[in-house]
């Protein structure tokens, strides 16, 4: 670990200014990922701006019936909030399937969204990584591929985004509020994270210094049932091989609305818009669910070491939708 300075910010504008001015500065929230990466010298900030007191740690009702989650709300508080558990079960389930109790106590909502990939080559400074050092090459492409992407990857990067929470938020049409050098802006969660394209060093669309201040959830549709299904290599404390956040509304045996997002498949939480479009208006049957999954996964380009993720993603999507259908009956 390199030596670094530590400052606690009192004002959002001052923190933003510092980050814009000092290229070696970084925001520190829960630190559950950043501090690990500093120990590994994957990131080497010279100045940490502690932002834990800058943003809200409260969950508030919005006038439209939605919720506003402060960026500093710990993952454990968000998962346990009765309103979240009742109205957005998929979000609570996703949070509780991630990390450990201790980590969830420390990790924040904003930090969870901005955590880095757990690609083993990204986390090891002795192996080449385009995300760490642009142009250095991708060691994962021909390396250990089990946790790598099957959708939306590029020749420069096949890493996946590790968050469970973000997958649920993608399915819920959440909006992220961001403070920055200019005025505050709102970004749809599905547009916050990027695909790697030619510049995988950029995880998100955030500009230098921009700070997530909160996440807004639109009002829940009363008939929408939702759940999070995470498939991984052991029962606890492992990242998703495949995860599915799904919400389903069925009227008279037909799908009226479906929201589906996938985790473990791409550089970002993957909103399965093709599957959703296929489902809308279709009969709520196993065959429709299979068709929808197949339509979404027709774009999959797996590597030899993760080809199993395609049937796994299909089966998990179908099983999750069938469970929601069962629940609706």
């Amino acid at each position: 670990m390199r030596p670094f300075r530590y400052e606690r910010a009192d004002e959002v504008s001052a923190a933003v200014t510092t980050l814009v001015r000092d290229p070696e500065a970084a925001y520190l929230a829960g630190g559950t990922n950043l501090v690990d990466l500093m120990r590994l010298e994957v990131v080497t900030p010279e100045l940490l701006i502690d932002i834990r007191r800058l943003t809200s740690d409260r969950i508030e009702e919005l006038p439209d019936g939605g919720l506003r989650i402060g960026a500093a709300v710990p993952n454990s508080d968000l998962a346990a909030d009765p309103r979240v558990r009742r109205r957005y079960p998929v979000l609570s389930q996703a949070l509780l399937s991630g990390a450990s109790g201790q980590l969830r106590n420390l990790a924040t909502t904003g930090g969870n969204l901005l955590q880095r990939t757990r690609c083993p080559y990204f986390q090891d400074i002795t192996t080449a990584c385009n995300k760490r050092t642009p142009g250095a090459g991708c060691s994962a492409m021909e390396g250990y591929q089990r946790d790598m992407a099957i959708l939306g990857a590029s020749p420069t990067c096949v890493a996946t985004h590790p968050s469970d929470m973000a997958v649920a938020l993608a399915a819920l049409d959440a909006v992220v509020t961001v403070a920055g050098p200019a005025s505050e802006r709102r970004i749809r969660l599905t547009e916050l994270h990027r695909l790697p394209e030619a510049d995988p060093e950029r995880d998100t669309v955030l500009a230098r210094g921009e700070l997530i201040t909160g996440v807004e959830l639109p009002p829940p549709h009363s008939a929408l049932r939702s759940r999070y299904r995470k498939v991984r290599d052991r029962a606890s404390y492992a990242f998703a091989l495949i995860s599915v956040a799904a919400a389903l509304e069925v009227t008279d045996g037909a799908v009226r609305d479906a929201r589906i997002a996938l985790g473990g498949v791409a550089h970002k939480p993957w909103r399965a818009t093709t599957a959703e479009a296929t489902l809308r208006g279709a009969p709520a049957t196993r065959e429709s669910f299979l068709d929808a999954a197949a339509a979404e996964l027709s774009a999959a380009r797996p590597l030899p070491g993760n080809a199993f993720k395609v049937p796994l993603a299909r089966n998990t999507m179908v099983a999750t939708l069938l469970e929601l259908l069962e629940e609706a009956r």
Partner: protein
Amino acid sequence: MSHVTARPHAIGLPMDRVDGAQKVTGTATYAYEWPLDQPVYLYPLQSTIASGRVTGVDSALAEAEPGVLAVLSHLNAPTLTRPDDPELAVLQSAEVAWRGQFIGAVVAESLETARRAAGLVRVDYESRPPDVVLRADRDDLCSPVHAAAFGTGGGELQDGSPADSLLGDVDTALAASPTMVDTTYSTPMYHNNPMEPHTAVVTWLNGELLVRCSTQGVSMSQALISGVLGLEPGRVRVVSPHVGGAFGSKVYPHAYAVLAAMAARIVRRPVKFTLTRQQMFALVGYRPASIQRIRLGAGRDGRLTALAHDVIEQTAKAKGYAEQVAVCSRMMYAAPHRRTTHRLAPLDIPVPTIMRAPGEAQGMYALESAMDEMAIACGLDPVEFRLRNEPEVHPESGLPFSSRHLTDCLREGARRAGWEHRDPAPRAHRAGRWLVGTGMAVSTYPSPRFPGNTATIRVGPDGRYTVRIAAADLGTGTWTALTQIAADALSVPVGQVEMRIGDTALPAASVAGFSAGINSWGTAIWEAADRLRARLRAEHGGIAPPEGLEVSAEMAGGNPEAERYAMHSFGAQFAEVRVDEDTGELRVTRLLGMFDVGRVINPKTARSQLIGGMTQGMSMALYEHSVLDPRFGHVVNHDFAQYHIASHADVHAIEAHWLDEPDPHTNPMGAKGLGEVGIVGTAAAIGNAVHHATGVRVRELPITLDKLVS
């Protein structure tokens, strides 16, 4: 003053750990926590190539860092006196034999400074393409040649067994068998991963070396460390009272201890060095990967006619290490024609070492999986098939077993597991989305006694006994069990016995390995107690004299009975698994083990040992897997987030039971080893249950969901 009283029978009682309060209150001092005056810290440099040589070391930037005291490399390291052991011969040449090997170290006033400065050292290499892939069709497979470190067999394998064995004519017998199974199984590289990382805290004082470390045997560490440094053994003291897990990786001292000693001599300050989790994947050993071909022939009566077990395993080019993978097949079942072989693939990989049940863990996975396949091929129940092939005596040596109650384990285990209701048809039982199956396998592990143990017991005028032996407690409860043994041997309550272990200032002891600890140390303690009681009676009328009395028993040899009996622990394990039909997710919903481990000294710590072994066996079956990158030669998943070990949520119902039949020949207590038998057979029982649940036979560990999803 105290009179010798009637035997209080501490053996067999579930006594709480004597060190339990210290541990739960955080006052048990582990090696790295030892308070020192003005220590300095070491951070190592590791090679980033797997094969080649270091051509240049530029340490100027690191040396210029404030707080840096020394930068070591092969260019300036002291020459070791007897660098016979290539693993311990640290910094003695420019050669690099595996990725992650020590190529230097930075010593600084703080750990942070040392680590940062290590990143400033520039190393140039001449690199060769690494050769790290184990394949059965390699043309450079070789027979093991290195002499064994343990055992008295004089063979080439790590336990002293010969590399190959042959009885009868296997090929002819196989060809003539009505039923034959010919299958190949593979097991990956596994890392021991004890919770407490390997540590050396080293102080030189007047030419003498004090090493505080975490080891399974202070006496062996003393011998090997003093040897490589060219010191009289008496000038090296090794202290290790508490060990936070080891699983074999702390039997042998590894290079880190020598590196720390070297550094402490150069900077003339006490040096603290503990490995990071990532470093442990390159520097403290692992269970080598194996490819095992098993051929079984059976007659129409369901009895084996032939058994062949041919093993190919990884080893390091740097140091040959040959694990006894097929040795279990030499003693497990009766068959007139039998053969075992071991061949090695020497690779540019770290040096392997002992890991819990070395050999048996992998070998019994293969043998017991093949036995399941053969039982099915013969149309026999797997329990019945094993009962039919139970040998009367050791099938190769012809020696009788000191005790072998495997058939009782099979019958009683089957009864407790509800085995009689089992429908043998695969893929026939469901519970919702889960396919449900059951499987079983047999466990075994030798029960040896090591030479080189001395126990000293002193009784004070207050009637309190101090028992001294340089034994080790790896967190298993040995400290407590030895206290119970001493109390019974002395015929006094345990409260009158104080046990001292884990220090070479105490009488020498063999390592905690090969499930030999209780057998070896307990026998020495028992003998010393007998002698003390005899002298108290003969010379002092049974009353401790005012000046106290001290008696030692030196057990130079092993168990003389071992020439007349084959000594092994046994067990039968039963597993129930559920496999999600959609995702291949697998849950072990029940594990039941029924063991024959002789007399159990402490049921509480014994149960922990057995269910701990079974849990590690489950972890071996389903989760653990060190992934070697063939291009770079390093373990890719080198941390606890990526190297998956069974979590609490993975363990459902788990039970360990035992027969409690004392063994008449192993030792005065009637105990057999139980530290390792629990991990043996678990993986096969689970794999067999997966086949029963799904109809899919996975022959490559670990059984991950990608092998079951469709």
